[in-house]
C-alpha cells in the first residue's frame, strides 16, 4: 500500500515537472571543523558538515552529534538518530554512520 502510494506520488511529481535533480548550490558538504555553526559528527576522527541535504558516508565509531545551526538525522544500518534541535549535543552508543541528512 505504502509502496503504491509513494510510487503514485513520485509519478505525479514527475508528471508535473516537479522532480529536480540535485544540483543545489547549498548542498551538504564536508568542511573543516573550525566553526560551531557546522554539524559535527564526533568520533576519534571527527568530521564536520555544512549546508543542507543528504549524503552517503562511511564513518566508524561516531558517538555524538553537535548539531550547530542545523537539525537533521544520521542513518546507520540499524536505524536513525535524530538531532531535532539547533545548538545542542546528542550522545548515543558508538556506531557506524552511513548517511547524514541536514534539514
Amino acid at each position: 500500500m505504502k509502496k503504491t502510494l509513494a510510487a503514485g506520488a513520485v509519478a505525479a511529481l514527475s508528471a508535473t515537472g516537479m522532480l529536480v535533480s540535485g544540483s543545489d548550490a547549498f548542498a551538504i558538504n564536508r568542511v573543516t571543523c573550525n566553526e560551531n555553526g557546522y554539524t559535527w559528527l564526533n568520533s576519534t576522527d571527527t568530521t564536520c558538515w555544512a549546508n543542507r541535504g543528504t549524503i552517503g558516508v562511511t564513518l566508524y565509531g561516531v558517538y555524538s552529534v553537535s548539531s550547530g545551526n542545523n537539525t537533521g538525522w544520521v542513518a546507520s544500518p540499524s536505524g536513525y538518530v535524530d538531532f531535532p534541535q539547533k545548538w545542542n549535543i546528542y550522545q548515543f552508543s558508538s556506531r557506524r554512520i552511513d548517511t547524514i541528512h541536514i534539514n
Partner: protein
Amino acid sequence: MRRARVIRLAVLAAVAAVTATGCGAETEPPVGSIDVITRETQISRPIDGYLPSGEQLRQLWQVRGAATTACYAEHGTPGRTNVPPDLAARLRIQRQEDVTRTRLYGFFGPEDARSRGYGSAFEGQRNLEMPAPWSRPEVVRQCEKAGSEAIGDLTLVTDERILPDGGPPSATNDSRVTEAVSKWSACMTRAGYPYQRPIDPLIDPKWQRPISTQKGEGPPATPAEIAAATTDIGCKLDTNLVGVAVAVQSAYDRRYIAAHADALSRFKERLLGYTRTGTT
C-alpha cells in the same frame, strides 16, 4: 596613453566585478520604527509569510518518507521509514525555536530561562532513536537519496533557509545590530558573563547538557545555568537587543522579498505542487 587605457579598463573591470558580486546591494537598508520586544510572541518578520506552513512541511516529509520506504521495500527491507511518529509536534517546536534560539540575537525565551535555563522544549519529549530493519549501507545511501529526489532535493529546514537563494541575508553584521550587541555584551560583562556575541552563551560548554538520544533528555539545568540565562534575558530587555535586531532583520527581509518576487512565486507554486500530490 596605453597606461591610461589599461587603468581605465582596470577601473571598469573592478566596477563590473563589484556589480557582478552584488556588492552594490550590500548597503545597510533603512529601518523603520523599532518596537520594544519583551516576549518571544511579539517577534514577527516580513519573511514569515513566505515560509511553508507546518502542514506543508509535514506533507513534504511524508512524500519523502514514502519514497524512501518504497525504495527499501524494493531492496528487500520492508517497513523501514525515516519519518518520526511525532512529526507534527516536532515541526511545531522547531518553528518556535527558530524564534527563541538564533544566531542574530541568541537565546530569547523569558519564561523558559527561569525553568530550563538554555535548555530546549524538546527535552524529555521523545526518544530520538528510531530503530529500523537492517539494510546494506549502499542501499541506505541509495534509498535516502531516492527519498530526497522525490521532493526535488528540497531540504526541509523550518526556517528561512528553505527559501530561494537561502532566504534573506542575516543582519548579524549590520552596524545597528552590532551596536545593540555591544550594549548587551557590556551588560553581560558587568554581570560576570563576558560574552561577545549573542550566540556565545548557547554554545558555551558550561551550559551544554548533552542529550541522550535513548532517553531524549539530558541532565537538568543547574542554578548557575538558570542564573546565566535569566541574566542574558535581563540584558536583552535592558538594551532592547531583540527589538533592534528584529527591526533591522525585517529591513533585510523586505529588500530580499522585493528582489526575489518571481523566485518566491515559483517557490510557492513548487510547494503547492508537492503538497497537492502529498500523502497524508
